[in-house]
């Protein structure tokens, strides 16, 4: 077992002052996102509504709803699905309270609320305190850093839905290889 000298004498100051920033893959995994999404679906959409995790391609008319998380980890929780599936989600969410005619505004509102609920619960498992934005609906925000990105694909009623958690900040520069070498030299055996 080895322990770095840096760690032995670490008071926390170096980590706070350093450029290390957690990426989402270190903070949450697909299984946790699936669990959060499934709970949201069962509570909001219906008791028998199951999400089946499977790689899927979104249709060309995909719409997205998202909320931003701002805190020790800053990024966005994005739900995407086809337009028709978003309408079906809206009807299922509203159930008997659904108006006779579902307008685009209703779909955006309902899809945004699902993103809000999933995003709020994703935020809860990330380091805090964090702030949650109001939901937005439209074209999905661009992925800024592929290393700071986790995506779960599911089928709901046979239709593709994706849930991604993606960093809002650009990727950090690669570590200096020289620094890595020095770091290894600082390791001591215990």
């Amino acid at each position, binding site marked *: 077992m080895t322990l770095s000298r840096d760690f032995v004498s670490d008071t926390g100051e170096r980590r706070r002052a350093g450029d290390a920033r957690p990426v989402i893959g270190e903070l949450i995994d697909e299984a946790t996102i699936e669990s959060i999404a499934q*709970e*949201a679906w*069962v*509570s*909001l959409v219906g008791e028998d509504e199951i999400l089946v995790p499977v790689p899927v391609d979104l249709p060309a008319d995909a719409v997205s709803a998202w909320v931003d998380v701002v805190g020790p980890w800053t990024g966005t929780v994005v739900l995407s699905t086809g337009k028709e599936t978003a309408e079906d989600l*809206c009807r299922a*969410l*509203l*159930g*008997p*309270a*659904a108006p006779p005619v579902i307008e685009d505004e*209703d779909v955006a*509102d*309902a899809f*945004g*609320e699902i993103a*809000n*609920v999933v*995003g*709020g*619960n994703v*935020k*809860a498992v990330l380091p*805090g*305190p*964090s702030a*949650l*934005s*109001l939901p937005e609906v439209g074209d999905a925000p661009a992925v800024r850093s592929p290393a700071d990105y986790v995506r779960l694909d599911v089928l709901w009623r046979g239709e593709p839905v994706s849930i991604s958690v993606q960093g809002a900040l650009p990727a950090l520069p690669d570590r200096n290889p020289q620094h890595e070498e020095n770091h290894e030299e600082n390791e001591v055996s215990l």
Partner: protein
Amino acid sequence: MRALVIDDSRAMRRIVTSILEGFGYELRDAGHGREALDVLNEGWVPDLVTVDWNMPVMDGLQFVSAVRSNPAWRSMTMMMVTSESEHTQIVRALAAGAHEYVIKPFTADAIRDKLALLGLLPQEAVL
């Protein structure tokens, strides 16, 4: 009994309203805290207020604080219904004057249980 449902999502207002109607409540709703204060200032004072946290114009925490600063509204019971589930946020809401806290997603049974705890479940809903 009367309830005021405050949420910026129309879908969520419909869902909460539908649940409370099932318990026999007379209802009004509002899309944010400022709109809800307008309802209260009309003289329509509810027994129960369900209030979301993150809303435009006036958020749920600001609304709870505003209500608590007015002695005329002290009889109202306020229940936060929100996707904010961090412990620190729950403590902030309760410290500001909320009586109960329900985390989205929730079920109708969860709302019923909270109302029963608060003594706000109408007798016909208990039977």
